[in-house]
């Protein structure tokens, strides 16, 4: 077979591939066609006396131009992942954000801490299960004690040692459920009562000038 005849067959084949790759980017299309041409050239170099039927066999093994174009349109199966440079930028942004957030939090804490420390002690304590076991929780200069009336009823006693006063009218608004279990002493000096499920019963109780001893029955 003459070189011209082979060239014509190969040129026709690659032209058809190029035409069907019209929707692909120029770089992709040229890379694909370059690969196919290299593939055919390798085969021709190995068999300089290749016949027409043998050349057509090589093209058949490559596949039809339509099949190649269809393969080019198939989306990638391998997942895209972020490049290292993007990960580096993300890490820097997160680091700067963390520094700013910690700075703001420190500033807020410093501005609030002196008043709380002066009036109520620092840090505030929570009447949790451990406190219930000892029946005593200290909060600043005040102490709280409690005792169980039954498995479902509790007495909560606030004992005056020294410090501000809690208006018991606030506690009269408590629902009559046997679930007055946890006293939360907030960082801002307020007291919050919740039941065993963490549901708020009373919020933002503001202590005033002195404490009194009082019993609350659940």
């Amino acid at each position, binding site marked *: 077979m003459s070189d011209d005849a082979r060239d014509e067959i190969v040129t026709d084949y690659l032209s058809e*591939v190029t035409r069907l790759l019209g929707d*692909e980017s120029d*770089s*992709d299309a040229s*890379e*694909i066609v*370059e*690969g*196919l041409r*290299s*593939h055919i*050239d*390798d085969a021709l*170099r190995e068999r300089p006396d290749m016949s027409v039927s043998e050349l057509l066999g090589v093209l058949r*093994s*490559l*596949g*039809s131009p339509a*099949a*190649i*174009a*269809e*393969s*080019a349109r*198939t989306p*990638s*199966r*391998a*997942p*895209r*992942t972020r*490049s*290292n440079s993007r990960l580096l930028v993300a890490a820097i942004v997160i680091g700067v954000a963390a520094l700013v957030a910690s700075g703001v939090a420190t500033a807020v804490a410093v501005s609030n801490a002196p008043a709380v420390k002066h009036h109520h002690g620092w840090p505030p304590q929570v009447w949790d299960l451990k406190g219930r076991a000892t029946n005593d929780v200290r909060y600043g200069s005040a102490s709280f004690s409690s005792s169980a009336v039954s498995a479902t009823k509790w007495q909560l006693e606030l004992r005056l040692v020294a410090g501000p006063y809690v208006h018991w009218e606030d506690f009269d608004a408590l629902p009559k459920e046997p679930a007055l279990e946890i006293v939360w002493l907030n960082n801002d000096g307020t007291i919050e009562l919740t039941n065993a499920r963490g549901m708020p019963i009373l919020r933002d109780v503001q202590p005033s000038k002195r404490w009194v001893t009082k019993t609350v029955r659940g």
Partner: protein
Amino acid sequence: MWRMEDQGGSEIAQFRRGVIEYCVLALLRDGPKYAVEIVRQLGQADGLVQSEGTVYPLLARLRRTGHVTSYTQESPTGPTRRYYRITAQGAQSLHDFTLRWKRFTVAVDTVLEGAQ
């Protein structure tokens, strides 16, 4: 029955398309290869590639998505060849796929062998 066989062939074709990119990445695991070499090695694996020419668009796609890079190099026996090299991203994808693939094949084998 013929429909069942036809559907089975179609399923295999879909399956092949799903794994062929990872097979290319696996061939590049030990070092760069030029395109024709990759295509021929894939072609030697029975049933993996129906048309060798369809691998070239796949190589271009892997390069575009950052799983491989390519470069050209003069060949001592012929024209310039395009070589492909796996990237860190491609190696990570291959690693993840290999783990999933092993679990998947074990599960399928268990079911298929149990059904016999």
